[in-house]
């Protein structure tokens, strides 16, 4: 810079940066509604809980109920199925979790019916552990819904639920 001294940073730099900053905030606040509109809407969020009557579910039977647009398995486990799940050493598990941590009453297993790999619905009483087997990519779950084989990384998640009475459960 020669004799015409211009202070650096000058007034123009300040105006440029503040204008750009306000513009960026403005653009982001316009973009957010355009993005957020795709998130689950109020009517979807409202459908957050269901009640399931357990009395018709026989021992050994798995019933699939629809919760939040997807399947939830309600499994009335047999003594053998419970024992298999309880007696599995944690060292054999890919996503270690005890069976006790996954149930409120041992005979009732309630888990999400969405494979943790890519979201297919696993088939009950299939696979080496007689739990579930996913038809899509071959993930195998045991009678506690824990991942044992295949590409799925996690156990079938346990949704939030509560026993309202001995034979009625509220999911969600």
């Amino acid at each position, binding site marked *: 810079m020669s004799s015409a001294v211009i202070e650096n940073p000058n007034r123009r730099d300040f105006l440029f940066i503040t204008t750009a900053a306000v513009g960026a905030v403005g653009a982001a606040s316009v973009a957010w509604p355009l*993005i957020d509109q*795709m*998130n*689950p*809407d109020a009517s*979807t969020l409202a459908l957050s809980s269901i009640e399931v009557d357990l009395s018709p579910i026989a021992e050994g039977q798995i019933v*699939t109920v*629809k919760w*939040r*647009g*997807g*399947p939830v398995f309600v499994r009335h486990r047999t003594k053998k199925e419970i024992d298999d799940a309880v007696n599995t050493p944690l060292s054999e598990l890919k996503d270690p979790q005890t069976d006790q941590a996954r149930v409120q009453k041992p005979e009732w297993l309630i888990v999400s*019916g*969405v494979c*943790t*790999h*890519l*979201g*297919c*619905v*696993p*088939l009950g009483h299939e696979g080496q552990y007689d739990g579930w087997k*996913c*038809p*899509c*990519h*071959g993930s195998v779950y045991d009678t506690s819904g824990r991942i044992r084989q*295949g*590409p*799925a*990384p996690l156990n079938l998640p346990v949704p939030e639920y509560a026993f309202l009475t001995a034979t009625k459960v509220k999911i969600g």
Partner: protein
Amino acid sequence: MSGTPSYVPKSAIGKWFESRLPIMGLVHSSFVAFPVPRNLNYLWTFGAILAFMLGAQIVTGVILAMHYVPSATEAFASVEHIMRDVNFGWLIRYLHTNGASMFFFAVYVHMFRGIYYGSYKAPREVLWILGVIIYLLMMATAFMGYVLPWGSMSFAGATVITNLFTAIPLVGTGVAHWLWGGYAVGDPTLNRFFSLHYLLPFMIAGVVGLHIWALHVSGQNNPEGVEVKDVERDTVAFTPYATIKDLFGVSVFLIVYAWFVFYIPTYLLDADNSVQANPLVTPAHIVPEWYLLPFYAILRAIPNKLVGVVALGAAIVLLAFLPWLDTSSVKSGKYRPVFRVFFWLFVACCVGLGYLGSQEVSDTATLIARILALGYFGFLLVVLPLLGVFEKTKPLPASIADAVLAKTKPAEAVAPPASH
């Protein structure tokens, strides 16, 4: 380009218009006077075939959208309504569904041709990358289109593909819920897929415009892989030479397309998709459409979820880096004896992966899929970079004209013998 006559309107109206909007001159220089290498073979007609298929898909698609209802409760019935009640609805829908397969068949020929003849090499890197972007947009469009009939396979496909995003650490599930507009694939998902399925083809058309623009800057590659040196000797005018050849290529392609539409319209469809979507049941044997099978096989071959998804993405994205992965300065596979062998092995890997992707999971199938996936990545990441260093290529012809004339008029030996 030099040597091409510039467009001069003949009529007074033409002159008046041209001086205000020189669009006829642009068309003339791009599609009439444009010089094309004189040695192009029929593999070079697939560009025109693809342009035709994009047009055909847009026309049939716009018509289908007049009758289709994007709603989880009504979509399936509305497709049946198109098939049974709408005048010629069956024809338009079969043209559209089979058109997608034809489009992909043509794009695969186009891509393998590009790889074989090194069409991605300088100065055509941007042209090639635009092509990879078109391919990605095509896959997104085809996937969302497949979801629209709301059959059980549509639903399973939508579930599996959107669940790929759940592999992203921390934010994956949130991203999936955002994509679905719920906690699973459902009505909001179908509606947005319909909206995007209608939008994306026009984005493809836009990128195709850039693709053709880039092509007309660098000029076309050709089977010899040597650049045009003398426009007079090495090229012919786009019209009539390329125009007629392209039209003939499109016509032959249309015979195959029509064969599928009229004789085996459901051959490429899945019977499970004639069953309406049920969110509580996944079909026992799910497979994507044939054109996505190799990537599906790569995904299944890898036992770890995140690594599998990354490999699936890398298998596609790596294609954009081909101009730099292939280090050889010789373009055409015709002059690269070792590359040629590996090229066909690469094609075999792709076809083999495609076959395995259609089969049920078994230990043997998974093992073979792993070997073929290694072959796929090995070609791109190991073979291509190394061949440029170690391969002994054959001598290139001095020019396109020399190569052509040496073949057709051996007696007149135009070029010095050294060119052989």
